[in-house]
C-alpha cells in the first residue's frame, strides 16, 4: 500500500510516520501533488495554528489536490480541523471537505488547553472506530474544537461536547493524536489502513 503523509511542515510528522511504521507500513512524507494523488491513502497531520498550516498548504499548492482526493484521507488534530469549512483560529477558510467550523473550546471553566487522556462517547459504527468503546482513552492536546454535528463519528466531553472523530465519504479526521494514544490510537490507525471505501 502507498501511504502518503502530507508534509505540512508541522511538528508531529515524524510521530505519525513512526506510528504507521510500527504497524508495518512504510509511508512517504511528501508535499508533491503527484505523489499525494497517486497514493492509496493519505494522512494529513497537523500541529500548530490553522492559519500557519493552511498557509503551508497554500504555499505548496496542495489545496485543490487535497480537495480532489477520492481515496481515504485521515486528518489528525489540526489536520482534522483543516478538513472543515472554516477555523476561527486565525479566521481562516479551510479545505471544506466536511461541513463544520472550528471554534475556541467552550470548556465551562475547565482548564485549557484540553491536554491529556480522555474518553469518547456516542461512538458510531464507522469502520474507523471498529473495536472502540467508551472506556478507551485517547490523547488530546488542543484549545479549538469542532462542534458535534451529523458528521461526528464520536464525541468527547470536556466541559461541553465536541467532535472527537468526524467523517464524510472518503474523508475522516480525529481530534486526538492516534500516534500518541498507545494501543488504542494504534487501533484507529490500523482501522484506517484497513478501511475499504
Amino acid at each position, binding site marked *: 500500500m502507498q501511504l502518503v503523509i502530507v508534509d505540512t511542515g508541522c511538528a508531529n*510528522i515524524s510521530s505519525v510516520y513512526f506510528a504507521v511504521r510500527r504497524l508495518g507500513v512504510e509511508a512517504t512524507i511528501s508535499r508533491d501533488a503527484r505523489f499525494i494523488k497517486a497514493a492509496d491513502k493519505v494522512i494529513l497531520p497537523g500541529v*500548530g495554528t490553522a492559519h500557519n498550516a493552511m498557509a503551508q498548504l497554500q504555499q505548496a499548492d496542495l489545496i485543490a489536490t487535497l480537495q480532489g482526493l477520492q481515496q481515504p484521507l485521515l486528518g489528525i488534530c489540526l489536520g482534522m480541523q483543516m478538513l472543515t469549512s472554516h477555523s476561527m483560529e486565525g479566521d481562516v477558510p479551510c479545505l471544506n471537505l466536511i461541513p463544520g467550523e472550528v471554534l475556541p473550546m467552550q470548556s465551562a471553566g475547565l*482548564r485549557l488547553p484540553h491536554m*491529556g*487522556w480522555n474518553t469518547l462517547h456516542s461512538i458510531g459504527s464507522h469502520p474507523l472506530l471498529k473495536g472502540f468503546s467508551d*472506556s478507551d482513552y485517547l*490523547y488530546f492536546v488542543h484549545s479549538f474544537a469542532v462542534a458535534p454535528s451529523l458528521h461526528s463519528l464520536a464525541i468527547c466531553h470536556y466541559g461541553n461536547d465536541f467532535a472527537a472523530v468526524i467523517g464524510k465519504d472518503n474523508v475522516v479526521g480525529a481530534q486526538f493524536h492516534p*500516534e500518541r*494514544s*498507545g494501543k488504542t490510537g494504534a487501533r484507529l490507525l490500523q482501522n484506517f489502513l484497513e478501511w475499504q471505501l
Partner: protein
Amino acid sequence: MLAKRLIPCLDVRDGKVVKGVQFRNHEIIGDIVPLAQRYAEAGADELVFYDITASSDGRVVDKSWVRRIAEVIDIPFCVAGGIKSVADAGKILEMGADKVSVNSPALARPELISELNHIFGQQCVVVGIDSFFDVASGQYQVYQFTGDENRTQKTRWLTRDWVAEVQARGAGEIVLNCMNQDGVRQGYDIAQLTSIRDICKVPLIASGGAGTMAHFTEVFTKADVDGALAASVFHKGIIEIAALKAKLITDGISIRP
C-alpha cells in the same frame, strides 16, 4: 473524563538516564530508549526527558536520542534542557517530541515563551520552574541552572510572579519542581502546589517529592494538579505504575487504566 497523568521523568546526561538527590550527585540509571519503552508499556501517561547538562554547560548537546525515542514509544513525550531558541525547539519537535519545556533560557529571555507559542502553538510550550523555599525570606523563589550544582543560582523572581508571567506569555503547561522536596521522597509540596494552583489556569504538573502511592493520591486530591511527575520511585522500582494506577482508581481519582 479527562484523566490525571502519571509522568515518569528521565534526567538525561550524555544519552544516559541519571538521577541525583536534590539535583546533585547524579548516578546512572540506564539506557534511555529501553527505559522509555518500558515506561510506555507499563502504563505511563507521558514521559519527560530533562537533558540536565544542557543549560548549565552552554554547549551544543547531541539530541539524536529524541528521534530514537519517537520511533519506539506511542505516548506523548516532552524534552527539556538547552532549548534556547525557536530553531532549537523546532529540531526537537521535528525529531518527534510532542512538547518542549524551557526553564533557564526562559528566565534569561522571557520572550522565548511568546516566540515558541507563536510558531508551534501553546500546546507545545511547557515551562519548567525550579522553586526553592527560602527560609530566611519565607518565600518561594525561582532558581536557575539547577542542572549544575556549581552554577545553580537564585533569580530575581518569586515563584508566584514567574508563574503569572509565563502564563501571560503563552505557556501551555507548567511543571513546578519543588526543589526542597526533590529526590527525598517525603511527599509533594502540597502547600506550595495548592497556592500555585489558584493562579495557574493552564495544566499544572507537580514535581519533586514522590515517595509512596499515598503521595500521589494526596497531590491529586489536595492540590488538584493535572499530572504528577516522579523519577526515583519509578526508576528504583519502589512504585510500579500499574499498582499505582489501580490504587488511584480505588481512591476515586480519574486515571487511564
